[in-house]
C-alpha cells in the first residue's frame, strides 16, 4: 500500500522560501501568481494492506516526526 503525506505551513506562519519563490516567478514574467507557500511531500510505502491500520500508522508518523504541528499542517492520502 502506498501513501502520500503532504506537510504545509499553517496560515500566518512566515514562509521566506515561499516568498522568494513567489518573487522569482513574478520576475520571470509568470503573470497571475498571487502567493506561494512551500511545503513537503513524503511518498511512503507501507507493508500493511489494511486501510484503517495505515491511517492510524500515518497519523502517528505525522504527529511524531513528519510535521511540527506548532507551525505545520499535514494531510494523509492513501493511494
Amino acid at each position, binding site marked *: 500500500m502506498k501513501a502520500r503525506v503532504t506537510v504545509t505551513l499553517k496560515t500566518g*506562519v*512566515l514562509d*521566506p*522560501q515561499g516568498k*522568494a519563490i513567489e518573487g522569482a516567478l513574478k520576475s520571470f514574467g509568470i503573470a497571475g501568481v498571487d502567493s506561494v507557500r512551500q511545503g513537503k511531500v513524503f511518498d511512503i510505502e507501507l507493508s500493511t494492506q489494511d486501510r484503517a491500520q495505515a491511517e492510524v500508522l500515518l497519523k502517528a508518523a505525522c504527529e*511524531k*516526526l*513528519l510535521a*511540527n504541528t*506548532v*507551525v505545520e499542517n499535514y494531510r494523509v492520502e492513501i493511494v
Partner: protein
Amino acid sequence: MKAVVVLFPGSNREGDAVRALEMATGKKPQIVWHAETELPAGTDLVLLPGGFSYGDYLRCGAIAGRAAIMDAVRAHAARGGLVLGICNGFQILCEGGLLPGVLMRNKDLRFICKMQHLRVECADTVFTRAYTKNQIIKVAIAHGEGNYEADDETIKRLEGDGRVAFRYCDDKGVVGGLANPNGSTNDIAGIYSDKRNVLGMMPHPENLIDPLVGGIDGAGLFKSLVAA
C-alpha cells in the same frame, strides 16, 4: 557541577562546549552518545551543542529531538535538572518539546555568521547570575534557521513570565530593526522553560571565552553555572 555534552551525528560544536565547561568547572565534561538511554548518574547539566544534527534533514533538530537520549534529557529537566541548548541544541529543545515555539529559516534566507550583541534580559537565573540585568554582551551567531516563532499566546506567556533570556540588539542595547539578524519575534535570541532550568539560545557563548578569539563575554554564562 557535573556536566555532560550530548553528541548527535552531525553535531560539530561539542569541542567548544567541552572547552567552555572545562574552563568553568575545572573538569572535562563527559560526552554522551545520542543512542544512550540514560544520563550518567549525578548529572547536573546537560548541554546540547551546536552543529547540524542529522544534516538538518526534515527540519533542524527534528530527528535529534526524538533521539533515544532525549527521553532521559526530558526526565532530567522534569526533575529540575539543568539543560542548555545552543544553536542546533536550541532547535533540538524546541523540536523535542522541552521549549515552546520553533526556529524557522532566517527572514532573508541567508546563513548568518558574525558577531552579534545581545541584551541579557534577566540576571536572576542559574544561567545568567554572573551578568547584570540589561547588560550588553557581544557573542557570535552562526545559523540559517534562527528565526524564533511561536503563536501569540506563547509569546505573551514568555514575555509575561520573564522567560526571554536574551534579545538581539545593537552595541548600544537598542533592539529591533537591523539589530535583529534573523527576523525573530520580539528580537528573541534565547528562552527559558517555565521553571527556568532549561535554556535554549541561538548565539554561541561558548565561542567567546578566550581573549585570543576576540572577547570573553560568553564566559559569564558558564561562570554563572558553577556559582552555585
